């Protein structure tokens, strides 16, 4: 069978890419949020031994790739993997494997339980056709380990700190530890008999938990807890940092509505091979955001 008789686009759809070496392919496997079970890893190892060259390549998006699989073995290898519940990844102009950090389930800093959210995004969007490649990331807090703002859609755990005057001893620690310098101590009557109050610069605040977790007297409490949604991030040849769609989205239903609206907007407005962020720049961020919020039936911050 010659290369010409194999439909390369169809192969890319199921995560198989032609290598430099004639007749050899990369098998890209799916690992939602970087999760694989021990039996799945064992099967991947077996398949790499049997059909590849006994080694794997770890991708930048938490996936595993088996390289050097001969085209005649692709189907058998895929079946062996499927038997252990290992699915193929995706290449080409479609939604790729959803990446996620471990999140609040195990991470001491986590604000968001990233795994259920990433599995839901996977169930809804994985492999769906898009104008260009489309990457979704979920990250549990502002430490941003899975780089929400390098992805077409990024969801980041977020909290809104709230100052509790009655708990505050005026030590000023929050002012000196805030990584963004977003907290200020203001002189003057706070209306309740104190001659000072602490205030947050909302525009500078990245909704992390430094102030709420370090305040010795819990005077910074977690107010709202939710998700920051980013749109239009990309690296690649023409990098673009993502734009914030909304800083705090409390309900998961609204998260899904905004993500769905963003994706449908991009599908209608994106040109072929144009990444989401570049579509946003061509159309204009404000216009794009207005249309997305209208579609989602949601309000801006």
């Amino acid at each position, binding site marked *: 069978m010659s290369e010409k008789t194999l439909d390369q686009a169809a192969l890319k759809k199921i995560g198989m890419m032609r290598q430099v070496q004639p007749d050899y392919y990369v098998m890209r496997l799916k690992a939602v949020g970087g999760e694989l079970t021990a039996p799945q890893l064992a099967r991947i190892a077996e398949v790499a031994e049997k059909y590849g060259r006994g080694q794997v390549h770890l991708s930048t998006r938490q996936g595993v790739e088996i390289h050097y699989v001969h085209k005649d073995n692709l189907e058998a290898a895929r079946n062996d993997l499927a038997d252990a519940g290992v699915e193929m990844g995706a290449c080409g102009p479609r939604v790729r494997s959803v990446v996620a950090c471990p999140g609040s389930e195990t991470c001491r800093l986590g604000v968001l339980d990233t795994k259920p959210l990433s599995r839901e995004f996977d169930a809804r969007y994985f492999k769906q056709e898009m104008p260009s490649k489309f990457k979704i990331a979920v990250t549990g807090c502002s430490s941003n380990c899975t780089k929400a703002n390098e992805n077409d859609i990024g969801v980041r755990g977020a909290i809104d700190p709230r100052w509790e005057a009655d708990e505050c*001893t005026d*030590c000023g*620690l929050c*002012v*000196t*530890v805030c990584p963004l310098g977003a907290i200020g101590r203001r002189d003057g009557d706070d209306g309740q008999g*104190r001659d000072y109050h602490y205030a947050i610069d909302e525009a500078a605040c990245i909704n992390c938990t430094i102030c709420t977790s*370090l305040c*010795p*007297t819990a005077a910074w409490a977690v107010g709202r807890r939710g998700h920051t949604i980013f749109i239009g991030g990309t690296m690649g040849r023409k990098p673009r940092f993502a734009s914030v769609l909304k800083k705090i989205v409390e309900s998961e239903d609204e998260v899904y509505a905004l993500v769905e609206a963003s994706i449908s907007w991009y599908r209608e407005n994106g040109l072929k091979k144009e990444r989401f962020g570049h579509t946003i720049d061509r159309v204009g961020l404000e216009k794009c955001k207005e249309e997305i919020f209208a579609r989602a039936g949601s309000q801006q911050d």
Partner: protein
Amino acid sequence: MQEQDHSRIENIDLRGVSCPVNATMAKKAISQLHEGETVRIIFDSGESLIRAVRSINDAGYRIVKSEQLDNAVAVIVGKGKPAERP
């Protein structure tokens, strides 16, 4: 055995001491305080300050004041029960 008097230690400059050694040195100094005494410790600003403060909090010591310096932060830490709130 006579207890050594460390109440004269007022300032500890941990600028240039990296994490986690800065936190360890800070906690050692605080542990030598008597109840009610405080010590002023200077840390470099940034991630290592955050980690040191977290470590001081976790150890049950009490931060009573914090002051911004050039690229550094001075933290006054005490041992014992927190002061009455104003």
